């Protein structure tokens, strides 16, 4: 049953957000590709390079271009080209080296932003990743709004631009991000997929390399529209298993899940107050509101937390964090709250001072199945039903609509 495990997550999104659960909902997959990443870092670090043709790579006789800036690409320079060839094509290009350490640093900044947006991030390289944002619409708005917000945050925080493709699957998202580089934002939906794909040259299809492309050209197949004219049997006869995959891909069909190879480490909410809170009960109320929000996000993303961390900053800007491990991984609000409250109460008992910031996070996260217990089954089912019912109401009406009696709902939606 390949893929079945991963799909549970999306099913959950369907049941909660769509009025008619029989309507299949598109996934929301983003492919984010940093524009000329190495060259852009070089320009960032040396603004005098701005607007110039830049080749990143070594200078030795056998050196190759790792990245060419868009100005250099206009002269026919590209990645993996021998540096000597690139310099011949673009003699006025500036050749620079970007230290690997600097690349890793900027890459980490970019991926940290991905993690803030989404717990399901599949990195493809240092500057490229898939994000599965299905179910985040309530929190972040339409898929286009999410993509725009992501691009803005990346630009503001790293000084770099990214091209983003938004689509119902990885194949289309990847193709979409390439369509409007640099600084692009392209959306492919199940409505426009046919119009977008059919005119494209076959070489643009993800997975079609030069050899396959040449074979297809020899058969007079130039566009994806042409390719769609072939039956699956004909494609299989010619290309074997690849034929079956071509048949699906040229129609924009791709069911592969986004498989994170390093998941978000934690999910957290925190809040800084305009005036320091002088009452422990007041702080507790906000902490409970944030804990409810964290629980909702865990459940929405199908994650379990192994532990809880509470962060308190007082009026003198002293920050303490206190962590506790859960007996077993959980996504239940009451379990998270028992720990968060315990941590906060211990801090308060040691000497409460007015609080400037309170926050709670749950992590590390796991997707491993939760081991059920023998002696708490009834209680557990009840708590779980409470969480599930509350999640549906909050999804629809916002956290102000429903929260635990003493809680001040988290300001963020969701």
């Amino acid at each position: 049953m390949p893929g079945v495990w991963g799909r549970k997550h999306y099913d959950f999104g369907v049941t909660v957000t769509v009025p008619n659960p029989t309507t299949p909902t598109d996934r929301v997959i983003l492919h984010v590709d940093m524009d000329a990443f190495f060259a852009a870092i070089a320009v960032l670090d040396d603004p005098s390079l701005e607007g110039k043709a830049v080749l990143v790579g070594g200078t030795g006789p056998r050196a190759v271009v790792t990245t060419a800036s868009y100005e250099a690409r206009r002269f026919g320079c590209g990645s993996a080209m021998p540096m000597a060839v690139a310099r011949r094509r673009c003699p006025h290009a500036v050749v620079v080296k970007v230290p690997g350490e600097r690349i890793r640093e900027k890459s980490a900044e970019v991926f940290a932003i991905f993690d803030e947006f989404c717990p399901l991030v599949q990195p493809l390289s240092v500057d490229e990743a898939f994000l599965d944002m299905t179910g985040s619409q309530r929190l972040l708005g339409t898929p286009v709004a999410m993509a725009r917000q992501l691009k803005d945050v990346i630009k503001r925080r790293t000084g770099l631009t990214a091209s983003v493709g938004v689509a119902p699957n990885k194949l289309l998202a990847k193709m979409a991000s390439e369509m409007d580089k640099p600084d692009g934002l392209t959306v492919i939906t199940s409505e426009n997929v046919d119009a977008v794909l059919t005119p494209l040259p076959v070489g643009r299809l993800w997975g079609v390399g030069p050899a396959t492309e040449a074979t297809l050209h020899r058969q007079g197949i130039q566009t994806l529209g042409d390719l769609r004219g072939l039956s699956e049997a004909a494609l299989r006869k010619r290309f074997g298993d690849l034929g079956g995959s071509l048949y699906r891909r040229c129609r924009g069909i791709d069911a592969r899940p986004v498989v994170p190879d390093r998941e978000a480490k934690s999910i957290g909410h925190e809040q800084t107050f305009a005036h320091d809170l002088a009452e422990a009960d007041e702080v507790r109320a906000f902490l409970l509101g944030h804990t409810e929000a964290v629980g909702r996000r865990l459940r929405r993303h199908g994650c379990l937390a192994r532990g809880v961390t509470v962060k308190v900053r007082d009026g003198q800007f002293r920050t303490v964090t206190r962590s506790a491990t859960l007996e077993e991984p959980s996504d239940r609000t009451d379990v998270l709250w028992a720990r968060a409250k315990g941590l906060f109460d211990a801090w308060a008992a040691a000497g409460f001072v007015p609080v400037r910031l309170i926050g709670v996070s749950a992590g590390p996260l796991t997707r491993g199945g939760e081991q059920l217990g023998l002696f708490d089954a009834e209680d557990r089912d009840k708590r779980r039903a409470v969480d599930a019912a509350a999640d549906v109401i909050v999804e629809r009406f916002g956290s102000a609509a429903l929260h635990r009696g003493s809680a001040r709902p988290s300001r963020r939606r969701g």
Partner: protein
Amino acid sequence: MKVICDRGALVDALALVGRVVVARTPKPVLTCVKLTGDADTGLTLEATDTEISVRLASPRVEVGEPGEALIPADKLNAIVRESIDATITLSADGDVAEVTGSDSKFKIYGHPPGDYPAAISFPGEPDFTINAGDLHRLVAQTLFATARENSRYAINGVLFERTGNKLAVVATDGHRLALANGKCKATNKDDKEAKSAIVPTKALQLLLQLFDDAEQNVDVKLADNQILFKTDDAVLASNLVEGNFPPYSDVIPKDGDKKATLDTDGFISAVRRAALLTNEESKGVRMAFSSDGLTLSSRAPEMGEAEISVPLPEYAGDPLEIGFNPAYLLDALKVVDENQVHLDFKAGNKPGVLRTGPNFLYVVMPVNLQ
């Protein structure tokens, strides 16, 4: 005291009683083993950690001079183990002991034997008697399921529950529960009232090693918050675990309407193979039951996936998918003594029951399939 011992027998006896001795204690005498040489009873070894005490006769000895010795257990153990002789001589005078071989002589400074806690005794008649092989089975089929720590219930021990001639032994860690039933012989025929005790795991681990002669009979008695086990050559006494055992019969499902029968060995092999592609992040093995057979599948992120088909000689009920921690299944399958196991289920989020005949039952909670 002077005793000539068969070295092999002494090595075994010292290893057994040595399991009770604690390495670090404010009372140095507790790091010792007490030896008693007696013309009638031969050589007896005793050790205690104050919770658990054991007394064991070492066979194949010749007592030259009766008496007692109190010797650091790890030293004596090492000397006897490393010795190259078939027989060695233990002698003691007060707190100094000597171990003599054909080419060696060790002098060990021990403690005055009178400093040792009182010898354990088995007071009066036993409550009941049980065949050592049966007792061994009851403990082996349950001991593995105990909890290491649990605040709510006293489940870091094994429950012995006897009603007349019936003995039920139960252990649980809150995720699974093992129950073994057996027969015993109550000393008093009118003794029909249910009696129960929670026995620490350490005592039962020792019991498994101590009473390995299936033909022997074991006398058992509850007295003064202790449980005592006695055979012809050994006595084991242990304090009981205080606290409440959870209401275990409440969590044994009786409403399973999906029933499967499996060959034990084939099932073990399939679970072991499916477990190869699980990890800390995704511990569960998915089991899909239907009249077509059983399919086990597992998936470890970034590692891969496994799928194994197992024939189902019998299946009754609707198809079912349920996930289990494979280690929990294997723990039970390892102690099963039948060629077939029977499984009962109600639903994917309800406990599963594994049984072999009337004498062994195992309840295991599933993992939520993601």
